[in-house]
Each structure stands twice: as structure tokens, then as C-alpha cells.
């Protein structure tokens, strides 16, 4: 069994009639994802290009179709509200793709998530894929291969790079998750490591971090304290990033001397995690780590 996304996932697309939403709905259907409905306020009663029913609200969509998860392709100014709507409709998994949501909007969303049964991945992320089963998000499906390694990452294309290296070496993936590049995200490394720990299918985890915040250091502590014994291979992007500059992602910034790649790499190495010096050796390092078990 994979994590987050499996055969029982029934997906609702919030913002299904937008350019991104429409394009990726088609892509997700093509990959085999069970997309059951879309939501665009004001277009309830219509159907999309794939014949999927469109509803005005997430609640109406889940009532009519049994959708239990949602993906959000809503413009950033309205995305926080879309997440709150998905929480209110008791979506089990909410994947927020939208990029550029104001931080102040995300603070109350995070509190609402903490007080709910819903789990969110993102925002500003590529999404979640369980190879061979389905994908919720914008990643290219074909580079993946079903298997036993989990991938969690703060980045998009760098995740694809890592997955590609794994697949080239015949190492398949259980579930790959882009957690998002923002300062406030729904699920962090620890939240997902907990799930990988209990997931029989997952035998190892690739963790791709970047500068900014302290999620990698916290993950390193959690891994020792909770005796996470599956091999973990890590790479931290931004070893050459200058302090005080936001490197594309809203959360990728070294501020006040905190959040450097060197600190994160040291914290991970200190607990015995194989840390890749370059992004070119992620697949190779995982292959060795799996062989050494």
C-alpha cells in the first residue's frame, strides 16, 4: 500500500474550468486518476470537456459523487478560501497547487488544518503521485515507475530529476510528494516520514530539501528519536545561494544566518543520513543505500 493516494482516492478538481485546471484534469485522467467531479462557482450543472460534472461548491460535489480528496488550481488570491472550503467539506487529502498565496492568508488555514481531519499537501507544489495508481498534481507521470522508494521534496523539477535517476536505475517509487516551496505548508517532512514509517511498500526515502526554515533539521531529529530505520538519502539545494535573497520559492531564503544548506547537510549527516554532495548522484546513492541494508 502506498501513502496518501491509493485505489480508493476519488478526486474533485477545484478550479476545473481554468486553463491550468482543465489541462491537468485531462493529464490526471490519462494517468488513471479517478477524477469524479470539478468545482467552479457559477458553473454548477455544466460538464467539463471530459464529461465530468461541475458543481458550485465542494460540498455539493462530494455529496453527489462521493469525492473524498481535492486538488486546487485556484488563483492565489482565492486559494486560501478554496482550502478552507475543502476542509469544511471534510476532504481527506487536499493538494494545493496554486503558487503565490499571501502568507497572512495561510496562517489561519494552517490552524484550521490542525483542527481538522484533513491533510494538505502544498501549496506551491507539484502534488502527489503513486506510480501506476494515480497522480494528483502537475508532475509528468511517465518518468515514474511503481516500486518501493518514497520521495519527498520542497521542489518541483528537482524532484523529477531525482525520480528520473531512480527510474533509470530500475528503482521504482511508492509515493512521491512535493511538499511545496512556501514558508507555510500543509504537510512537512516529519508528517510524511510518519506515514512512510508505517507503509510496508516503502523501503527507503529520498528527501530533497533546500535553504530556508528548519524543516530538514527537524526531520533529522525526528528520524533518530523515532528510530526510522529505512534508509534515507538526502540532497539540499542552495549550497551556493547568497544570504538574504529569496531563491524563487517564497520559503527559500537564508535569513539572519539561519537556514543554510551547510547547516542542514550537517544536521542530516550527524544522524547517519546519506547526504548527496551534488544533485547528480541521488539515484546512485539510493541504490547503494538499499544494497547496504
Amino acid at each position, binding site marked *: 500500500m502506498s501513502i496518501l493516494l491509493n485505489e480508493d482516492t476519488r478526486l474533485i478538481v477545484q478550479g476545473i474550468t481554468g486553463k491550468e485546471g482543465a489541462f491537468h484534469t485531462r493529464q490526471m485522467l490519462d494517468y488513471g486518476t479517478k477524477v469524479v467531479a470539478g468545482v467552479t462557482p457559477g458553473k454548477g450543472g455544466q460538464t467539463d470537456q471530459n464529461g465530468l460534472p461541475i458543481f458550485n461548491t465542494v460540498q455539493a460535489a462530494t455529496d453527489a459523487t462521493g469525492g473524498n480528496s481535492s486538488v486546487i488550481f485556484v488563483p492565489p488570491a482565492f486559494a486560501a478560501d478554496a482550502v478552507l472550503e475543502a476542509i469544511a467539506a471534510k476532504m481527506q487529502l487536499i493538494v494545493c497547487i496554486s503558487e503565490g498565496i*499571501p502568507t497572512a492568508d495561510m496562517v489561519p488555514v494552517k490552524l484550521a488544518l490542525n483542527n481538522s481531519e484533513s491533510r494538505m499537501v502544498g501549496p506551491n507544489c507539484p502534488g502527489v503521485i503513486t506510480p501506476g495508481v494515480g497522480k494528483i498534481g502537475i508532475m*509528468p507521470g511517465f518518468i515514474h515507475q511503481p516500486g518501493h522508494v518514497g520521495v519527498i521534496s*520542497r521542489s518541483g523539477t528537482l524532484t523529477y530529476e531525482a525520480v528520473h535517476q531512480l527510474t533509470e536505475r530500475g528503482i521504482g517509487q511508492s509515493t512521491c510528494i512535493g511538499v511545496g516551496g512556501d514558508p*507555510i505548508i500543509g504537510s512537512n517532512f516529519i508528517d510524511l516520514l510518519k506515514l512512510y514509517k508505517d507503509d510496508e511498500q516503502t523501503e527507503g526515502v529520498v528527501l530533497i530539501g533546500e535553504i530556508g526554515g528548519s524543516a530538514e533539521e527537524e526531520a533529522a531529529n525526528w528520524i533518530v528519536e523515532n528510530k526510522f530505520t529505512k534508509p534515507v538519502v538526502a540532497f539540499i539545494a542552495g549550497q*551556493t545561494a547568497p544570504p*538574504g535573497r529569496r531563491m524563487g520559492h517564497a520559503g*527559500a531564503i537564508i535569513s539572519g544566518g539561519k537556514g543554510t544548506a551547510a547547516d542542514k547537510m550537517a544536521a542530516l549527516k550527524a544522524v547517519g543520513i546519506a547526504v548527496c554532495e*551534488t544533485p547528480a548522484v541521488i539515484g546512485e546513492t539510493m541504490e547503494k543505500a538499499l544494497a547496504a541494508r
Partner: protein
Amino acid sequence: MKIHEYQGKALFRAAGVPVPRGFPAFSVQECVEGAEKLQGNKLVVKAQIHAGGRGKGGGVKIVAPDAVREAAEALLGMTLVTHQTGPEGKLVQRLLVEEASDIARELYAGIVLDRSTSRYAFMVSTEGGMEIEKVAAESPEKIIKEWITPGQDLKVFQARKLAFALGLTGVQVKYAIKTFMALWQVFKQYDCSLIEINPLVVTRNDEVIALDSKINFDDNALFRHPEILELRDLSEEEKSEIEASRYHLNYIKLEGDVGCMVNGAGLAMATMDIIKHCGGEPANFLDVGGVANAETVAHGFNIILSDKNVKAILINIFGGIVRCDRVAQGVIDAMGQLKVSVPVVVRLEGTNAVQAGEMLQGSPLEFIVAKNLEDAAEKVVLASKGGSK
């Protein structure tokens, strides 16, 4: 987005955060004329640039009212170098002239997002005037924090706790609470990502006033604050970065000589890292985003090449939804139009990478085609050092 100290103080004043009486000036004449309306036997003339450490760098002068002209003449047009400007420094084009305060104590106050709790934290410290990063590293117990409940405001009892923790007494406590409450309102009203007052001072009259102001705004929220966007001072920003943002390219200029053009911020950082690992120095961060067509690639080339240090360029695209054959066509078209005078290494992986490779190989233009990320980095570093193509 950042603003100048005088602009931040105007926001403070409007919200009820006490600041010294003063005015901004763009010329010596304005300084002299404005100073006549200020009181006191000492005035402060402060260089306005988007960087800290101005006092140590010689950008702040405390003078008698009749010496304002001299101070303004010295500061306007000077290149101010501080620990935050880099060795090239920044040109001083604006000044702030203020009444000097009668300082009893120097404190620190700030508001930031605490990422590990996803809440805003209001911080104060008795170590005002010091580099707060240093205080945080060396004596973290000297920074006192109160967390703001999501969706709510700083509470009066929290402001009071902070005031007492600073050792304030009597009427000082009342003034500090008022200042802290108003400061939070500024933070909230304008979607700030950071506010720092260093130093926040207690005067000999027991007032608690902001002697400095540093405000950063959340770029993602600027769409709802057109009045803040008007405060942007483009002369404080790198020209090539402003140009890049016009084309929705995310570009940051660095000091090295290996240019790079990448899709995705994480991969762009990782590409810089591997260039360094192979013995090169990245000249920039450039994320071309999800659309790598001929137009974006051409803009990317123009921006990278505006940096005269660049000796070679690496294009690293992982095509997901973006198809590599389209990117290859974009690269071929852009190189055909522009005179790219430095070697270009291209690495395309992902959707339709094989066709893309054939297109590049078949083109009469001179590319160096790399087979993987490491190969690409090695080739571009070699090319940047004048090695064989």
C-alpha cells in the same frame, strides 16, 4: 519588497507608532530648508539605502542645526559600503533629517513569521542597537517572544508581558503597550513579512519611540496594496533583475562567470550547486518557469549576457509538461536571432528528450550537448575556462 526607513516611519506615524520628528530630502537645499522647522540643538542626518549597518558605514551624522548643510553634502552622492551592501556599496540619493532623541535605553522590537509554528511572533530584546542575529545566536534567552493567535491580534496582556520583560516601569509600560499594539496593526494592515525596530528607544521623558524602521512586505500580497507598491525604489534594485521580472523570469545576479538557465527554482539552485562542485562559479540564478519557449529563452539569454562576466552558459531543462523538443526549438530560434558570443551547453531531459537531442545535434549552430546533469556541469565549467568545445 523593501522600503526606505523614512517611508516605514511614515507608515508608523500614521498608525500611531511614535517616531522622531523629521522629513525626507532629495537635495542639500531641501535638507537645509526643512531643518529650519525642526527643534532641538542636535539633528540627525541619515542616508537612506536598502541595507543595514548604515551607522557603522558612516551613513549617519549627528550634527548641530547649522551643520546640516555640511552633513547633507557629505552624504548625498556618496557610495555607502556596509556589511549588507557588498563591497561595491550603494549610492546615497535620499536622506532623512530628524530631531535627535534624548536616549535613556536602546531596545529591539520585531515581528516575523515563526515557520516552525506557522504563527507570527512578536519579539523584543533588551539588546537594542546590536546585530539581532548575533544576539539570537549567542544569547537566545535575551530575545523574548509572544506568538499571535492566527486570525487574531496581539493582545494587550501580551504587549504588557513584553513591556515588563524589557524591564520597563511606570508610564514607560503604558507607552510601550501603545507602541507594540500599533506596530502589530502596521504589520497586519500591509501584509508585512518583517518589521524590525533597532533600536527602539526609551527617552529620558519615558516615551518609547522607533528610532529606526525596517519593513519588508510579502510580495505575494502586494496585489492588495497598490499604495505600498508606489513606495518601491527601483534604483535600489539590480537593473537586470527588474528587466527579468518584466518577463516573469526569476533572476538573481551573482558574482561568478558561468551563466545558467533552468526551469524550476529547486533545480536552478541545484544546477548552481553542481557548477560550483565542478570547479566553476555560478553567475546567476535564473528560473524560466514552466514556459521555456523561444521567447522566454531569448529573454533569458539577453539577461544572462547583460552580465559581462559570463564566459559560458548552461541551459538545463527537465521537461515534464514542457516538451523538450519545443524547448530545443526555442533554443535554436533564440540562438539564431541573437549573437551569443559565449559557448552554450544544453542539457534537456524528460518529455521528448531524444527528439530534442537530435534537433540540437542537427542544427548548424554551435551547441555543446550534454548527456546528463554532471556531464553538463563539467562541460560548462571547462568551456568557461576556455577549454575545448
